[in-house]
């Protein structure tokens, strides 16, 4: 694993918005295949900005994002072939069924001509209720939508997966199921970058954890290191400490 | 408490982008309308000065009506010239403004602006009230504060009514003020009263749509899709139903095409009259027969035609928009009943001078000078008696009905 090239890489990434706010300050980050990296931090710390930069939704002020070695700003279309995205609030086409949504996004992700059964299999895998497969998505609960979101990511079968607060608003059971799926995907060799508030679950699932504060990555710990330190205590301490001077 | 909510509505409207746009729209449309119709009126007036009948001519021709600036209605039809001759009445087109572009687009009078645009605006305003608050979650917040639903609705209604009507009234009064600067236009006190009546009816009309908008938004789930329902209903009320009556009535009442028949007679009689000069009393009798014959045909035609018109009006009245148009045009003096009244007066005029005319032709004497035609627009009381009161009451009834409906719908509304 250590000699493997990182699938997701942020190099000296900075973002200053038009109104002058420095959202990201020289971020350096790497995620390899078969690894789950959890990005922790308060609201406005820069987690979502990082993800937005990876997806080329906004251009960086300085620095570069690489997906599978491809510069996201220079060749976004090529780069996006190698990443799947699950947003915080998965919104889909309400008038379509779960399968129809899956079908559409599968095609967008380059997977055409999949059979109905293939879609059903994926949806079963994420524990979506059988009767929901052909139901219109507009009546889905949040948990169901998140599951559908991850199944879209699964079917694309891209080497990297970006998730923005995937378990927020989920009941404990749904969150548990969701993270189990992530664990499976990790075993399949995917590089997973996930932003979250949920310290407790992060401790369980992450191979590495990064804490962001005011645009900077102030701390990184591996799973082993966390066995000897109380993540919760560290996190809260950092939150309570003096604001970082720029 | 109601007033607090009303205030909140007014203030949130004032700072909203949507309100600004609507205000802009109202100002531009109303002022443009006054400007354009004023010009049109001036052109027709100067044209009228050119073609007005000389004293002694047996011609009935009305000058353009200043209130047509607000509601053009049938002013053009009312401005036709009626020439009396021994064999009957010849109708010709009257003064023109030369403004032919109106044919491709409807005349942008005040009535049109209100009927078409402001109704849509009020509808959207009303619609927005409930759906927006629901989507913002503020509705739940208000209700969780122990505020009775009826107070909320009333407050919203009052707040939005004021937000809509006050700017509109100001702009309209501004427009009319500009009009009164024109020396050629002076509104008598009766006409001023009519103007205010029209304004009142306009407010009633607008508030109907406000209530309707609120009603629709309480009955539908998602705003984006329900806008189409809104549009459909608006189109139905403003365009379709007011014309449906005419279509249906025609299937039911058959009106003879009397024009064709009178053409033939006209030609025959013209020759007979012109070439049997000097036959004295025989000719006079003949002319009288012709006249009576014409009158009979005309009455028959008119009777059927009026039945058609009344039936079509009654069906059209299913839509408050139709009633609104009827009421306003009647009050402005450019409505269907006014046209009817004018025709009757013309016939009366003809009857008063026809004997003299016949004897002039018969005795082949010099052209006589006939008394001028004078027409007084129907008084307000007869306007109301002949239908405007019904239309106004009908409009007010719709208003109350839909306010009540929106009230009940809101009280039962599912906020989740």
């Amino acid at each position: 694993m250590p000699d493997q090239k990182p699938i997701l890489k942020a190099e000296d990434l900075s973002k200053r918005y038009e109104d002058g706010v420095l959202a990201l300050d020289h971020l350096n980050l790497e995620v390899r295949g078969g690894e789950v990296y959890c990005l922790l931090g308060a609201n406005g710390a820069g987690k979502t900005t990082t993800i937005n930069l990876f997806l080329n939704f906004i251009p960086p002020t300085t620095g570069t994002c690489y997906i599978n070695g491809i510069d996201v700003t220079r060749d976004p279309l090529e780069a996006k072939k190698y990443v799947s995205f699950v947003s915080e609030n998965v919104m889909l086409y309400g008038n379509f069924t779960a399968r129809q949504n899956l079908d559409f996004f599968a095609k967008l992700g380059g997977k055409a001509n999949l059979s109905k059964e293939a879609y059903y299999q994926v949806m079963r895998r994420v524990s979506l209720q059988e009767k929901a497969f052909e139901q219109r998505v507009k009546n889905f609960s949040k948990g169901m939508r998140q599951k559908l979101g991850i199944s879209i990511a699964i079917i694309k079968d891209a080497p990297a997966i970006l998730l923005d607060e995937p378990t927020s608003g989920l009941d404990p059971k749904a969150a548990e199921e969701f993270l189990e799926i992530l664990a499976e995907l990790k075993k399949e060799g995917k590089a997973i970058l996930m932003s979250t508030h949920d310290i407790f679950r992060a401790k369980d699932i992450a191979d590495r954890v990064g804490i962001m504060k005011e645009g900077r990555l102030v701390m990184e710990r591996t799973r082993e290191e966390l066995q000897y330190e109380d993540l919760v205590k560290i996190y809260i301490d950092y939150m309570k400490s003096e604001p970082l001077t720029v | 408490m109601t007033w607090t909510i009303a205030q909140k509505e007014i203030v949130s409207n004032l700072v909203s982008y949507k309100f600004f746009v609507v205000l802009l729209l109202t100002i531009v449309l109303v002022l443009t309308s006054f400007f354009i119709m004023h010009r049109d009126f001036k052109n027709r007036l100067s044209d009228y000065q050119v073609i007005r009948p000389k004293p002694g001519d047996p011609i009935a021709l009305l000058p353009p009506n200043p209130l047509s600036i607000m509601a053009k209605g049938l002013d053009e039809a009312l401005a036709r010239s009626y020439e009396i001759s021994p064999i009957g009445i010849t109708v010709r087109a009257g003064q023109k403004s030369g403004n032919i572009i109106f044919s491709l687009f409807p005349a942008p009078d005040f009535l049109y602006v209100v009927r078409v645009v402001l109704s849509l605006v009020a509808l959207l305003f009303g619609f927005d009230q409930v759906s927006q608050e629901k989507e913002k979650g503020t509705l739940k917040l208000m209700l969780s504060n122990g505020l009775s639903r009826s107070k909320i609705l009333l407050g919203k209604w009052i707040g939005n009514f004021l937000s809509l009507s006050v700017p509109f009234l100001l702009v309209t009064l501004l427009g009319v003020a500009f009009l009164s600067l024109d020396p050629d236009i002076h509104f008598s006190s009766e006409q001023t009263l009519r103007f205010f009546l029209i304004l009142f009816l306009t407010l009633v009309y607008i508030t109907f749509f406000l209530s309707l908008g609120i009603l629709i938004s309480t009955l539908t789930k998602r705003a984006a899709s329900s806008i189409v329902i809104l549009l459909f209903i608006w189109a139905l009320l403003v365009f379709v139903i007011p014309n449906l009556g005419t279509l249906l009535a025609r299937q039911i009442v058959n009106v003879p095409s009397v024009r064709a028949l009178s053409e033939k007679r006209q030609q025959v009689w013209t020759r007979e009259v012109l070439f049997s000069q000097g036959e004295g009393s025989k000719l006079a009798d003949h002319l009288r027969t012709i006249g009576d014959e014409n009158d009979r045909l005309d009455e028959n035609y008119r009777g059927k035609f009026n039945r058609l018109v009344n039936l079509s009006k009654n069906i059209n009245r299913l839509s408050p928009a139709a009633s609104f148009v009827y009421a306003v045009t009647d009050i402005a003096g450019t409505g269907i009943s006014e046209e009817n009244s004018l025709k009757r007066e013309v016939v009366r005029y003809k009857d008063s001078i026809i004997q003299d005319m016949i004897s002039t032709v018969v005795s082949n004497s010099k052209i006589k000078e006939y008394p001028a035609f004078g027409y007084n627009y129907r008084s307000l009381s007869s306007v109301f008696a002949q239908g405007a009161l019904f239309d106004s009451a009908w409009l007010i009834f719709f208003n109350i009905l839909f306010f009540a409906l929106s009230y009940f719908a809101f009280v039962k509304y599912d906020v989740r």
Partner: protein
Amino acid sequence: MLKTIIKKELLDNVFSYRFPLFSLICVLLIPLGMYVNQVSYAKRLRDYSEQMRLAGEAVSALKIQDVMAGTVAIKGFRPPARLSVFTQGFESTLPRFYEFTQDGFRPGESSGGDESIFSVQGKVDFVFLVQMLLSLIGLLFASDVIAGEKESGTLRAMLSNSLPRDKILIGKIAGGYLALWLPFIIAFLIGIIILIVGSFPFFGGDTPARILSVFLSVSLFMLIYFTIGTMVSSSSAKARTSVVAILLVWASLQLIIPKLSDMVARIVYPVRTNTEVSLEKSLLARSIDTETAKELGRQLDLVFGAAGPKAPEDENSPEQKKWNSVKTRIQQSARERKARQFGAIEETYQQQKRRQQNLAVNLSLISPSAAFARFIADICGTGELERTKYIEAVRAHQNALDNELFSKVDRTVMIRPNGETMLAFHAFPVDLKNLPKFSIASASLQDAFKENWRSLISLAFWLIAPFAVAYVRFIKYDVR
């Protein structure tokens, strides 16, 4: 990839609330608009045939005495435009007929007449429905093409894939437009079927080609408004703001600009009304006629002496011959004077009108609605072209009648110096049974296209420019 997006967009619309509702609106109102106008057209056609017949009878009963008495008034009727089922245009304001007399032509009543009182509620024809409703619906449907999707985050989901933005935009426009176009096609076909069932002369001449042109123009019109709506959507962050903006756009394009343009033109180039010009002409005619009559009277005395010509007139007496040549000379010069001065008045007037008209047309082209309305009116034969052709035909017919009929009877009015008025008749043979018939050379479909090149350019502009703006905006659109 593009097909996937188009299909998704189309289906998304079809499965939503809006599609069945819009289809209902279309299928109800469009055929209704066509049907209502067809009924009216059938009636006007019946009236027209009847009146033609009667007028024909009247003409065949004409005697030379009528011509000498100067009471001949021949009517020339205009057939109602077949395609007025689609748009009334100027149909109800054009005179049903013109009356041709010794002294010139006069317009008869317009087909408004008694029927006009039903117009108090506004008229609802096919083109009106398209302009008012379909434009608004097109705008509204397009208003959340981009803004709505963003709010629901699907835009982000799409953009996390290897999908170029321009493909997304084109796919959305194509798919969304199809969801509008398909119900329209069905409604239009239903309308056509209703027309055919109602014995509308569908298959005749270039009617099918014109109807196809109408269909294509309306389709273009809808696409234009849909694209404009997309442009507004790509410029707003929220669907709600775009709805408001759209209402403003619609009102300006639909209501304000078309009317304002006419008004501005009238202010910039004021023109006298037709009535004033006619009045000037008739006053002029009267004064020339009086002068001529006086001159003739004087000459009469000079030739024949104070006693006047003896009756019966001796055709071959030298006085008579001299008188004839004098009379001809005076009348000729009077005619020339009249023609010249009338010509001058008419020329100036027409020039002024043309200038004003041109300005009004050019200004109104700012609105795609106005451009569309003019163009379609001309296709249907109820527009400006028709009016021009009508008046041309009227003038030509007046000329023809003057040559064949009115000039054959020489009514000479003479005012002698002693104040006595004399009337002399001289009739040349007239073939009363074979008088020229009035007919209007309708403009062809090619003419309609040619005359409306400016409208077509305006429409093209309104299609391309908003698309370009939407494109540029969307490429930079913030999807966060």
